[in-house]
C-alpha cells in the first residue's frame, strides 16, 4: 500500500500546486481587466492616444492594425516582402465594413 499512498501524495501535491496557479489566474481574470495592476492605466492610455490595435506584429499594415486594414493591404506592405509568414497566414485582413457586391446586369435590363 506504500506505493499507492506515495502516488496519491505525489498527485495531490501537483494538483494542489496547479489548482493554486489556476485559481490565482481565475481570480484575477473575469471580464474586468481594469482590476489588474496596470489595467486601468492601459485603458487610460488607449483612450487618450485613441489606440485601436495591439503592437504585436509590426511587419505589415494588416498585422500591425488588423482592425484598420483594408482588404488589399495584405499585398502591399513591408518593402521587399511578398508574404509575412507565419503571421501573414495567421492574421488575415478583416472583412468587417466591406459589403459592396458586384452585380451582373444582363442586356436589356436596367
Amino acid at each position, binding site marked *: 500500500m506504500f506505493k499507492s499512498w506515495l502516488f496519491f501524495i505525489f498527485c495531490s501535491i501537483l494538483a494542489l500546486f496547479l489548482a493554486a496557479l489556476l485559481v490565482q489566474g481565475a481570480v484575477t481574470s473575469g471580464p474586468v*481587466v481594469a482590476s489588474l495592476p*496596470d489595467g486601468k492605466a492601459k*485603458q487610460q492610455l*488607449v*483612450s*487618450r*492616444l485613441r489606440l485601436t490595435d495591439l503592437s*504585436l506584429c509590426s511587419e505589415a499594415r494588416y498585422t500591425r492594425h488588423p482592425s484598420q486594414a483594408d482588404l488589399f493591404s495584405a499585398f502591399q506592405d513591408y518593402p521587399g516582402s511578398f508574404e509575412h509568414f507565419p503571421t501573414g497566414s495567421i492574421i488575415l485582413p478583416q472583412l468587417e465594413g466591406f459589403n459592396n457586391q458586384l452585380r451582373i446586369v444582363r442586356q436589356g435590363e436596367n
Partner: protein
Amino acid sequence: MRRLLKILDFTLSSLLKRKYKNFALIAVYAFTIAVLGSVLFLTQALKYEATGSLETAPDIVVQRIFAGRHDLIPVNYAETIRRLPGVKSVSSRVWGYYYDSLIKANLTFLASGSDRQTLDLLEGRLPLADDECSIGMGIQSAFGPAIGDSLALEDSAGATKTFQVVGLFRAESNLLTNDLVIFQEQTLRAFFNIDSSLATDLIVEVYNPRETKTLAKKIKYHLADTRPITRDEILHTYETLFNWRSGMMLAVATGALIAFCILAWDKATGLSAEEKREIGILKALGWETADVLTVKLWEGLVISLTSLLIGLIGAWVHVFVFGAPALTPLLKGWSVLYPDFAYTALIDIYQVFVLAMLTVGPYIACTLIPAWKTAVTDPDLVMRG
C-alpha cells in the same frame, strides 16, 4: 476500496519495473500537453489583454476607402457626421508608418490628442513642442535612445529632422505602445506632408453606446466612400484573431497529439507477449476480467494524470514565468520590433478541463481497449505456454 488500492499498488510496481520506458512515455506525454497548454494559456492571455485594454478604444473609427484602399479622409466629413443626432464629438486622427531600412523595422507614427495631461504608463511627458517626441520601449531597445536624446528622421521631402525624446512608455504598456512614436499633430502633418484639410481617419464618440451600430450605418449612408469601424468590431477582430491563431497552433499541436496517440495505441495494442502472459497468469491465479481491467485503468490513469499535471504546470511556467519563449517565434513572424512583455496569468478553467478530457480520455481508452480482448479470454491458455 481496499481491493482498488492493492491493485493500484500492483500497477505501480509493474510500471516501476519498466521505469525507463514509462518515464520516457510520461515525458513525451507531458511535453505534448505542455505544448497544447502553452498555446491555450498564451492565446487566452493575449485575448484578455487585447479585449480588456481595448475596451476604451474609440467608439467609431471612420476611414475613407478610395479605389478599394484605405485613403486620407477629408476633415470636412466631420461636419456631416457631427450633425447626426447622438454624436458626442468628432475628431481627426493622424498616423502613419515609417520604415527603417537599417534594422528593417516598421515604426508607427501617431499624433497625440490635444490634451496636455500626463499618462500613468509614460515616463516623461507627451510632446509639447514641434521638435519633441515620445517613444515606445521597442524603439528604445532597437535604437537605444534615452530621454533627452534625439531621433533623426527623414521626412517626406527627404530632409532630415531631429526630434528630442521627451517621453518613454513603460514596459507594462509594451503590447500597446512598443513601436509607437508620438508627435504633435502639426509636427506629424508637416513630416508626412498631410494637408490640413485631410486626416488619416476620424474618431467619433457617441452618447449612447447602444446607438453605435445605427450611427455607423448612418455614416456609411451619408458618406458612401467611408468605412466606419465600431469598437465592437475591433474587439471582435481580436476575439477571432486569437481564436484563429489558437486554432492554427492547436491544429499543429493536434498533429503532435495524434502522433502521440498512434504511439500509445501501438504500444497498447501490441500488448507484448510478456504482458499477455502476465494477464494470463493473473487470471489463472483467480483474478477476474474486471480486476485485470482495473490494472489497465490504473495504468492509464497513473500515466496520463501524472503527465497532465506535469504538463500543465510546465505550460504555466513556460508562459507566465518565462514568457512563452518557444511560441513567440510563431507570433513574432518577421516583426523586428516584437514587444517584450510579461503575460498576465489569466486562465479559462473551462478550457483547461477540455484539454484534460481530450488528453486523458483517449489515452485511457488506448490502454484499456486492447487489454479487454486479452482479459476476457480463458486463462487456461497460459497452461499451454
